[in-house]
Structure formats: structure tokens, C-alpha cells
């Protein structure tokens, strides 16, 4: 029989206002096994915890029930309290009488009655609690960063600077990501490449960083501290160790039909190419779908012209198997497909461009060498309309737009407008906006500068229709402030398209068993208090993969994720969650059903000699690896004999709670 102490917290008036805490403490006294029961203003305070510690010692308590706020809030606190008084932390149970009682009920009698029932359930459960000892597992001191954009690069640099090895897996032939495609950055208007490329070089030269470009994660097994990743290094048909990045092959290549992804398809490139001048690794890659050699077996001009002998047409995909202690997801974003919005005529006219395309047009290394011209005829535009919130804040259709605010569009549109006006004062610029959202350091000042200094025409309202007319685009929109409908004949229309997670994220989320929201952004372990961790232990989040954010925020989060990774990799071993499944040998039939539902592959089988009243001899039984098991309990229900049970949430504990609640 346990000796149970019950501690009822007032939480100031948060609980005490709708729950008669004295009555709860009094009722608990009459429950079997309860030898001590009391109440206090703030149990989580130092005085409250001292009271618990003293009671544990004085009354030789074997179990503790705290009636307080949600266990999600203070379970860890009270477990530590118990440990400091010499009690096993898993002998503590919380009755949630705040979030799930006092805060939702108004009537004192009702609240008190329910609190007593919840306390009883916790007492009934603690009767069946057993001290649990957490096992440990070693930590592989290497991190994997998935995605080589600014988020991934910054995370990798920070981790590597702390002395741990980092692999960056990047699906494109070069690292750099979206930031490499940007022309200038807001609100300082400094050149994106100028601040990014030194970071790329730092990463490439860092002795602890290993960049695995043109590669993707194939599969992942294991658990925090002990992941095993299979990385598919796609064949680039170039020997990376030999290629000097001289670029001769890219010039000689006769096939010029490939759309240049880096320039958002605004111009073309050869079948063998280096994405951009500062690419890292500065190594060419052959697009085998486009390459004449791969299609016809002929050509081979690149091979003939490569003095380093780096062309390898017979190169195959390679699978690298690597072990990691932590994984950082930095998969970034892509703009949504603007062609879903017929009204903006994106598919109808090349002069309707997305902001990222516009970014390339404005960029000196872009398809127009930085000269602002209309894509259709190369003529100088005189009037440009920017439309914001294209697909953002759109709840109309999930396949079309996104319900969230993409966060960066207001600022980059202001940037674009300003840059156009700065370079080409003759160009009229209109911006249709719903709300101009500029919270951020120097952000509003930046936006106001566009309006006041650069005379950008900000129109509160939306465009209802863009129609292609002979040599211009007819833009029809509303000006809500002047209460009129506006008609503009523009030369170009720039759509501030919403951003969405990279399409590879969903599959990756499944592979990592990391949860995602309905928009495919990775979910953080806690929206406020653990914003850079995934709920899956050992998986961390960096950059837009977690939610829309601008560059400084991304870099900040990247650093934070790195700090978390460093914190993990510093440890020599990890304490496992002791609330894991275990199989009762005497009851196990070895039927393998549990194995099939285990998402972690934590269950294996072995033939073992068993002696029980029902069976003597050697039989096949399930064995749970406590370091791999995460304690979901899927196996426990699939087990017909009840051999599989979950520590901390055992069948008998849950039934005891049911009984107590239904009493």
C-alpha cells in the first residue's frame, strides 16, 4: 500500500476562486492510502515545494498527488521536487484542476466536486505507479542539417564553431538557397550576395562542416542521439574532386534549352551548368534529361573540353550511410504557383511576374543583367503595378492560396518599389495593398520612405482583374480610401506571391516523424517556449520550414537551433524516457502484431526460455528497446493478451482512473 500525500494548490485565486481547495484537501484525506493532505497558495513556489519535500520526509510518502495546473506546465517542476526529497520522480501525479477545472467552470460547488473527482483519479493512479528509472543512450556527436540556405548555413556554422561535426545536405547542386537569388535585402538595401557568399565560403572552408550537395535524405532510423541516415547523393556526372569550376564545359555545351532555375526560368542554360558564379561547391552538374549525350549517346563536347577530366557520364547515385546525434530541418520555402489566380493573368502575359522573378530581373547577375525591361519585348516599362497578398491570407481554396500572412511581402514590395523609383525615376509605381504590415526594426521607416521619399503610389485596395491588352496590361482595382475604382494601364505587374514550405518538406516530416501543421510547416514543440525544436526529440527547426520569416529572423532562429543542437551534442549520454512499452514474457505469444504497429521499429523478437504456470519452455517473445521506444502505446492495444503494457500509462493505471472518475 502506498503512502500518498495530496497537495492542493490555490494558484492564488486562479484555482481557489472556483474550487474550494480546503474541501478538496479534506476529501482527499478519506481516500485509501492518503496519509497527508494539505493546500497552499502557490505549490510551485519555493515555499510550496519545500512543504512537499518536508511532507515526503516526515510522512514517509511513497506517492505524491499535486492538484494544480496542467501537468504540461509543472509536472517537471514537481518531479524535481520529489527527487530532491529522495522520491522517485515518477511517483508524482498531477490532477489538473486549473485548466481543466477551475478555469472552465463558474460554479463553486460544481468546480469543487469535479476537482475532488480529478484528485481521486490521480490518487487511484498513483497507487499503481511504480518507480521508473530512465535508461541512458549514447550521443553521436555529429549533426545533420537538411537544407543549405541561409538557415542551414548559419546553423551549421554555429554548431561547427562549437567544435562539432556537421553535414549539410542540400538538394540543389549548390548551397545558398533562396537568399542567393535575392538582389537587395530590406530594410538596409545591402546586396544579398555580398553578405551571403562569405558565409557560404566560411561553411565550405570550415573543417568541421561537410557539404553534401545535390543530395537528399533517403531514409532515417534511430532516435535522438542515435540517428542513422541514408543520404542519396544524386549523380551529377562530374567528379567533384577533379572539377575546378572553370566553366569551360558550360560554355561549350551545345544544348541551350534548359530553363535556368536560378533565374526562375526567365532565361536558359546549358545541360551542363554551374547554377551561379559563386556556387559552392563550385562544381558543374549535368542535367541528364537535357544532355544530348544521355539522350543520343553522342556529343560529349564537355568531356572533350574538360582538361581536368572531371566529366563522368557513368556516375551513379550514391548512398551514404551516416550517423548523427541531432537533425536540423532547414528546408526553406518556395513561392506558390501564381498561375492559379486567373484574374492576375500570370499565365497570359510574360509581363506579369512574381516578386522572385522581379528580384532576378533587378539583379545584376540576372537574365537582364540588372536592367529593368519588360520580359515580353525587352522594352523599358513606364508604369508598374505591384499587387500584394497574392495567395496570402486566402482562405478561399486550399489548393490555390494560403490562409496565413507570408510576412515578408510587404517589405520586399516596398523594397522593389523603392529600387525601381531610385534607378528609374521616370517609372510610375503603384502598390495595391490590403494592410501594410511593417513591424520590425526600421521596417515602417523603410515603408514610409517608399511613400514619402520615393513617391510610390500606395493604394489601399485590391486588384480585381488584370487583362492583357495590345501593348499593356489593364489593371482594374479598387481604391477603398478614395472610394473609387481605379483603372491603370501598366507595362508590368508584379505579384507578391505567398510563400509555402518546400514541397520536399512533407515527405521529410514523415521520415523524421516530425509533426507538421496543415500548411506543411513543421510544428514547434511549443509555440512560445520551444520554438526551434520539433516535438520529435533530436529534431530541430531552422528558418522558413517552421513558418514565414525574413532573413534576420531566420538567422536568429538558425543560431537558436544551433544552440539547442550544441546543448544536445555536449552530452555524453542522454536520459531516455522511462515511460516506454515492455512485454510481459509470461503473457507474450510472439505473434508479431505489435511489431507491425510500432512506428519506431523498437520491437524485436527473440526465442527465450520462459517459466510460467501456463507455459514452460522456449518461446518467441517480444523485446522492446527502451531507448528507441517513444511510449505511444500503439503496441499495447494491438496485443490481445495484454502482454504489452506501457510504463507510466499502464492498463491498470488507466482503468483505475476510469473507475475513479465513474465512481
Amino acid at each position, binding site marked *: 500500500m502506498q503512502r500518498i500525500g495530496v497537495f492542493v494548490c490555490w494558484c492564488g485565486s486562479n484555482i481557489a476562486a472556483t474550487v474550494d481547495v480546503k474541501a478538496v484537501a479534506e476529501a482527499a484525506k*478519506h481516500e*485509501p492510502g492518503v496519509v497527508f493532505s494539505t493546500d497552499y497558495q502557490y505549490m510551485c513556489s519555493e515555499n510550496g515545494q519545500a512543504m512537499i519535500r518536508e511532507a515526503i520526509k516526515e510522512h514517509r510518502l511513497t506517492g505524491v498527488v499535486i492538484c494544480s495546473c496542467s501537468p504540461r506546465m509543472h509536472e517537471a517542476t514537481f518531479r524535481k521536487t520529489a527527487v530532491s526529497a529522495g522520491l522517485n520522480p515518477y511517483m508524482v501525479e498531477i490532477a489538473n484542476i486549473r485548466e481543466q477545472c477551475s478555469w472552465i467552470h463558474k460554479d463553486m460547488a460544481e468546480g469543487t466536486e469535479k476537482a475532488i473527482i480529478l484528485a481521486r483519479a490521480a490518487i487511484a493512479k498513483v497507487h499503481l505507479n511504480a518507480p521508473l528509472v530512465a535508461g541512458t543512450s549514447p550521443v553521436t556527436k555529429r549533426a545533420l542539417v537538411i537544407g543549405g540556405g541561409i538557415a542551414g548555413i548559419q546553423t551549421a556554422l554555429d554548431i561547427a564553431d562549437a567544435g562539432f561535426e556537421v553535414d549539410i545536405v542540400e538538394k540543389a547542386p549548390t548551397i545558398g538557397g533562396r537568399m542567393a537569388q535575392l538582389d537587395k535585402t530590406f530594410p538596409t538595401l545591402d546586396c544579398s550576395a555580398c553578405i551571403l557568399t562569405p558565409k557560404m565560403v566560411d561553411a565550405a572552408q570550415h573543417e568541421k562542416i561537410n557539404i553534401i550537395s545535390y543530395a537528399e535524405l533517403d531514409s532515417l532510423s534511430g532516435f535522438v542521439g542515435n540517428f542513422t541516415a541514408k543520404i542519396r547523393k544524386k549523380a551529377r556526372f562530374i567528379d567533384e574532386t577533379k572539377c575546378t569550376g572553370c566553366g569551360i564545359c558550360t560554355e561549350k555545351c551545345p544544348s541551350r534549352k534548359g530553363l535556368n532555375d536560378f533565374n526562375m526560368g526567365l532565361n536558359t542554360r546549358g545541360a551542363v551548368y554551374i547554377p551561379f558564379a559563386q556556387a559552392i561547391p563550385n562544381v558543374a552538374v549535368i542535367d541528364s534529361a537535357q544532355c544530348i549525350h544521355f539522350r543520343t549517346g553522342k556529343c560529349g563536347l564537355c568531356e572533350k573540353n574538360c582538361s581536368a577530366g572531371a566529366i563522368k557520364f557513368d556516375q551513379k547515385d550514391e548512398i551514404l550511410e551516416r550517423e548523427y546525434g541531432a537533425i536540423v530541418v532547414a528546408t526553406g520555402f518556395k513561392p506558390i504557383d501564381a498561375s492559379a489566380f486567373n484574374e492576375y493573368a500570370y499565365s497570359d502575359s510574360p509581363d506579369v511576374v512574381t516578386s522572385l522573378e522581379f528580384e532576378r530581373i533587378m539583379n545584376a547577375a540576372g537574365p537582364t543583367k540588372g536592367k529593368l525591361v519588360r520580359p515580353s519585348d525587352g522594352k523599358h516599362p513606364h508604369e508598374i503595378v505591384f499587387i500584394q497578398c497574392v495567395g496570402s491570407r486566402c482562405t478561399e481554396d486550399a489548393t490555390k492560396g494560403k490562409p496565413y500572412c507570408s510576412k515578408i511581402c510587404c517589405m520586399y514590395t516596398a523594397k522593389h518599389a523603392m529600387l525601381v523609383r531610385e534607378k528609374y525615376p521616370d517609372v510610375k509605381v503603384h502598390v495595391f495593398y490590403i494592410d501594410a504590415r511593417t513591424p520590425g526594426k526600421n521596417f515602417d521607416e523603410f515603408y514610409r520612405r517608399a511613400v514619402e521619399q520615393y513617391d510610390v503610389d500606395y493604394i489601399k485596395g485590391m486588384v480585381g482583374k488584370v487583362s492583357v491588352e495590345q501593348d499593356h496590361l489593364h489593371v482594374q482595382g479598387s481604391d477603398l480610401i478614395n472610394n473609387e475604382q481605379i483603372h491603370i494601364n501598366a507595362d508590368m505587374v508584379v505579384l507578391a506571391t505567398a510563400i509555402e514550405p518546400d514541397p520536399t518538406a512533407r515527405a521529410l516530416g514523415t521520415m523524421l516523424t516530425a509533426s507538421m501543421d496543415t500548411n506543411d510547416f513543421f510544428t514547434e514543440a511549443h509555440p512560445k517556449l520551444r520554438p526551434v525544436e520539433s516535438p520529435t526529440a533530436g529534431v530541430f527547426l531552422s528558418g522558413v520550414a517552421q513558418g514565414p520569416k525574413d532573413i534576420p529572423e531566420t538567422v536568429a532562429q538558425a543560431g537558436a537551433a544551433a544552440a539547442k543542437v550544441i546543448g544536445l551534442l555536449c552530452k555524453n549520454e542522454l536520459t531516455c524516457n522511462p515511460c516506454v512499452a515492455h512485454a510481459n514474457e509470461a503473457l507474450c505469444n510472439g505473434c508479431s502484431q505489435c511489431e507491425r504497429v510500432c512506428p519506431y521499429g523498437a520491437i524485436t523478437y527473440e526465442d527465450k526460455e520462459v517459466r510460467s*504456470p*501456463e507455459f*514452460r519452455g522456449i518461446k518467441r517473445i517480444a523485446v522492446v528497446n527502451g531507448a528507441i521506444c517513444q511510449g505511444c502505446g500503439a503496441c499495447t492495444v494491438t496485443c490481445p493478451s495484454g502482454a504489452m503494457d506501457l510504463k507510466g500509462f499502464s492498463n491498470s493505471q488507466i482503468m483505475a482512473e476510469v*473507475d*475513479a472518475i*465513474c*465512481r
Partner: protein
Amino acid sequence: MKKLSLNALNRFFGEIAEKQTLIAPIERAGQVDFGVWSESETVRLDVLKTVKSAKGAFFPQVEDMVRFHMQGKNIEINPSEVMNEDFVIFGVRACDARSFDLLDRVFLSDPVDPFYAARRAHGTVVTLACNEPEETCFCSNFGIDAAEPAGDVSAWIVGEELYLRANTEKGETLIKDLEDAAEDAAEETKKAIRAVTEQLPFASLNLEGFDGEHLMEKFNDPAWAELSRACLGCGTCTFVCPTCQCYDVRDFDSGNGIQRYRCWDSCMFSDFTLMAHGTNRPTQVERFRQRFMHKLVYFPSNNDGLYSCVGCGRCLSKCPQGLNIVKVIKALGGDK
């Protein structure tokens, strides 16, 4: 001897049921078992064997014994009341009627079982002769005459008439208002029954050696292993058996108190008499042996040679795998 037209049977039942509970073989969901009679029930006197025997009338499958209730840290104890109302059980066959004698030896010997004793005292047994014995019947081996069933009242169906004869005062009271009939009215029927009984395949089994003298010999017989091999360890034979009387006492924690009750148990179950250290009959061989040793050796040894089998044949027709006491008698008895 009294008589009653079968057409008037329901009226007779109604008269009985006005004063006391009447239990009779009634059909429910396609099966015939003893159950409480009411006008809406279908009585099936043509069915020879109810699935369960009649023993449930005196020794029900589940019976509450005592209830404990926690009040704070005190325990309140409320024993269940014993049967205190009269009842009649109608249509008991000769074999089942004999089983009551056997159960009496268990439950009415010291210490007397108050629940059973009360039911026996309040119950009136009306038996019915077996007009059409079946191939599974072998009651004659145990000195039971299917044509002359015991009980407080014995009854015979002759054509469209039911003839009843009181054997005890209780029986006398029950049928006193019925029409008188000649004492020998059922003699022809009895003869016919006996003629069939003699022809039955197991009319004369050789029970030689089933006694205390040969206990160890029977116990150690190697045949048990093979005999029991197909046994599933279900409780069908014990639960349909009129003489099996083992029960388990269990507690049910209702959340508001403990209900202690007893329920039939089966020596065929792997957890029969399971103790903290395990069980002393670890395999089905021992469990199977126990059941038949008890019926054919232990019980007679302690009860003047009376076998704890009445030859009703229910186990012969109900065992899922064709195991039964006849097979055991043949394998281990005098004909071995």
C-alpha cells in the same frame, strides 16, 4: 395418482405461478433450458435434455454472498439474503433428479451451505419420465430408472394426459386439487421406456475397478495422456453436468464497494484453484484426470460407492471434440 390433460397444463402452471415461482424447461433463442415460467414462454416438455441441467435451480451459476462497503476508513458488511420464497421446478428428468441427491451430499453435509439449503427447503421438484430416451443416455448404469423418476412429484405423459404422483408432503400439497386417476395408469408407458433403455448403446457399461481400492492404479494409468490430448480445456462438460458442483468465490470491486459472489468453476480450466505459487495441475492431462477421477473414484469412495455421474449424456452430445465420460469408462473400466 392424479391426472391432468396436457391442454390444461398451462392453466395448471398459471395456478402455481400465482403463488410461487415456477421453473420449467422453456425455449429461448432456440435453446431449451430451465427458466422462470410466464404465460408468454414456450414450455418444451418434448425436449429430453435441457442444455444446462436442472442443478441451477438450487445451485445457480452466479450467486451473491456478501457485500462490503467502505465508508471512509470503515468497512460495512452486508451478507446476501438466502432464498426465502417457495418455488416449483417442473419437468426434471430422472437423471437430474438424482443429481440433487448427489449435490445434497456435498452441500448439506457439514458445514451446511446455507444458500443451497435454503433453496432446497423452498423448492418442490416435479419430475417427468423420459418417454423417448436418446442414444446418449446411460442413466441405467447408475441405478436410475428413467421410467420412475424421483422428486416430490413424479409425472408421466401418456397420450394427451399427464399423470402425476406425489412422493412427499410438498408434492401432495402441490397437486392435491387435480383430478384423481388410477394408480397404474402409467404402467404401459413405463414398460415402453424400459424397453428402449435396455437397447441403448451404453445400457451396460463395465464400471469395475472404479472404486477406492484401485485409486492409484487408475490415477497412474497412462491412458489419461492420450484421452485428454484433444481436450480444449473449455468448461462445457462441467457446466452442462448435473453433478459438477465446484465453484469459485470472487470479489468484484464496483468502485463503491466489493460484491463477493460465487460462480461455477470448472476443473477443466487452467486457472482452476490457481494459487499464488501456481497450480498443482499444470497440464490438461491432470485437469482431465481430475474431473473423471472425481466422478468415478473419489466421490464414490467418500459417498458409499455412489458415482458422481447420473448418465444424462449431456457431455456426450456437447463436448466440442467428442470427449466424454463414457469414453473414459471404456478406456479405464472393466472392459479395458
